[in-house]
């Protein structure tokens, strides 16, 4: 596995993507649900940010919000989302946004079985991505499609280009989707659970391929997953989401070796592997209903380290050590350091 060392770029490089205070809400009977709640993140070229969370934590909705693909009744507020010299994607007319989606920002979703159109050959579908964005003539597009199929390591690309999606395995379809996402040479690639539907050996191949493509094209990669194992091998930085908020963020190694938020600590401790045959260290309770979030920290009801400050108001993000932030009152300078062990 090509595993990059800690952040390869200095923090002085301006970020390609800078999201500030992004919030996406849904009006439901009886209230407003914040699926994404004041999310801020930065991503530089050549860097992979692993966005980790359980189902319903808001990680996919964060990606859709950045792409402005949130369906009504969802509404995105806040920002700005600064991207590649543009001050705020949220301010762009839809016509401009359409030029960015699939061109400057490529994306891959979880389901390789349904994301391809069953009535067109895969070669046509890759070529289509180029034609839509005016990146090639019809003749050039097909030659380019073959190049892309080669780049994503599909054997015998000329023959595969004439195949229909149902003729390909899940892993091959995901390779085709990566080829489509890369067709217009995006700067940012958003991969939302790109390997969850795949078998473990195929998952490893696809993750290696993404890593390779990231390096080859100097991409910024937003890798969204529920699997900390996926992140450990492939991300430079990690952001952990819980109930719509980023509760911890930092360099990948710091998150794994020295997690600060009790939720991150609990997640890492609950992974099987430490002592076969022993009980796992489970996080008690259940993921909260977004419509009935507790008034303070949303992890408070399940947190083994909760104290009197926790239920008062949602905690801000504290910079615990340089480059690592946690939304947890344990790190409030007014709280004595003794609590944070």
């Amino acid at each position, binding site marked *: *596995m090509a*595993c990059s060392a800690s952040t390869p770029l200095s923090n002085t490089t301006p970020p390609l993507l800078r999201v500030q205070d992004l919030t996406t809400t849904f009006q439901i009977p009886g209230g407003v649900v914040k699926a994404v709640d004041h999310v801020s993140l930065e991503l530089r070229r050549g860097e992979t940010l692993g966005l980790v969370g*359980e*189902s319903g934590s808001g990680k996919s909705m964060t990606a859709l919000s950045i792409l402005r693909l949130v369906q009504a009744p969802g509404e995105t507020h806040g920002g700005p989302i600064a991207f590649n010299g543009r001050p705020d994607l949220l301010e762009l007319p839809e016509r401009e946004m359409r030029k960015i989606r699939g061109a400057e920002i490529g994306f891959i979703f979880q389901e390789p079985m349904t994301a391809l159109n069953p009535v067109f050959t895969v070669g046509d579908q890759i070529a289509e991505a180029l034609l839509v964005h005016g990146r090639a003539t019809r003749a050039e597009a097909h030659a380019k499609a073959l190049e892309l199929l080669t780049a994503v390591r599909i054997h015998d690309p000329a023959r595969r280009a004439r195949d229909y999606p149902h003729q390909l395995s899940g892993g091959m379809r995901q390779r085709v989707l990566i080829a489509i996402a890369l067709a217009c040479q995006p700067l940012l690639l958003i991969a939302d659970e790109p390997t969850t539907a795949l*078998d*473990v*050996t*195929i*998952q*490893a*191949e696809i*993750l*290696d391929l993404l890593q390779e493509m990231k390096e080859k094209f100097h991409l910024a990669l937003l890798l969204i997953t*529920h*699997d*900390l*194992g*996926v*992140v*450990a*091998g492939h991300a430079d930085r990690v952001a952990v989401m819980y109930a719509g908020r980023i509760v911890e963020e930092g360099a*990948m*190694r710091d998150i*794994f*070796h020295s997690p600060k938020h009790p939720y991150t600590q*609990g*997640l*890492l401790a*609950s*992974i*099987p*592997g430490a002592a*076969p*045959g022993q*009980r*796992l*260290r*489970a*996080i*008690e309770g*259940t*993921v909260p209903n977004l419509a009935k979030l507790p008034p303070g920290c949303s992890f408070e009801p399940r947190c083994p380290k909760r104290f009197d400050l926790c239920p008062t108001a949602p905690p801000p993000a504290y910079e615990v050590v340089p480059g690592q932030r946690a939304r947890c009152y344990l790190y409030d300078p007014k709280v004595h350091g003794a609590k944070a062990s």
Partner: protein
Amino acid sequence: MPLLEVRHLVKEFTRKEGLLSRPTVVRAVNDVSFTLDEAETFGLVGESGSGKTTTGRCILRLIEPTSGEVVFRGQNVLGFSRDELRHARRDMQIVFQDPYSSLNPRMRVREIVEEPFIIHKIGSRQERRDRVVELFRLVGLDPATLERYPHEFSGGQRQRIGVARAIALNPSLIIADEPVSALDVSIQAQVVNLLMELQEKMKLAYLFIAHDLRLVEHICRRTAVMYLGRIVEMAETQALFDNPQHAYTKALLSAIPFPDPDHKPVRISLDPKGVDLNAPLRAVAADHWAAV
């Protein structure tokens, strides 16, 4: 005597591709044999389509196997009449992967857990009710929620309901088919702990079907690896993980995403052409079998 002995199990499916083409026969389970002791956890791992789920269902005859023997407590399940099979199923139960589709949405959860007693005509109405309350406590659910419907519960709680139903009649074998893979990461450990706790209390044996190798390593005493319908390797779990022999096992283990930044696996890829599918299992070490 082992609790369960599966011998040369075969399940063929016939697939008809087109109107005029000849039907093709697919061997989803191809000559599978293994044994499972009382109170043991035996892992069955493999990728989708490897035949692990079909094997589990053939053992309970939820799918009728094509040939082979399934010997449970010394009796061949495949020779049972319908009545005998119904009786045997008191002792062998299944927990399904998806707690969202495996519970009848129109039944109250009390009825779901009570149903096995009614089917097997066990106990009076009051005895059944008392037992359901007991079962709810045993799996960590609040008996105050007995009269609710499945949709009112979270995924983890639903899986607890599925477990309560499976253990209702005090079985000795539970086929756990990916019992936690549909659950959230933070909930998986809770359900795994519940299964381990119940095993100790009730001396349950589990046939644990899973694709999460980290989990299998954690809870299974012995493990078999399936590939294209066959068991290609079988051993004590630790021996299998420490010293895999079959090319497929090596590839599978090298692909596990480890939640450890310093773990840099050497990826071993599998050349399917290099796998001899007709190689028989042979002993490579004590209680370690591989088709090499």
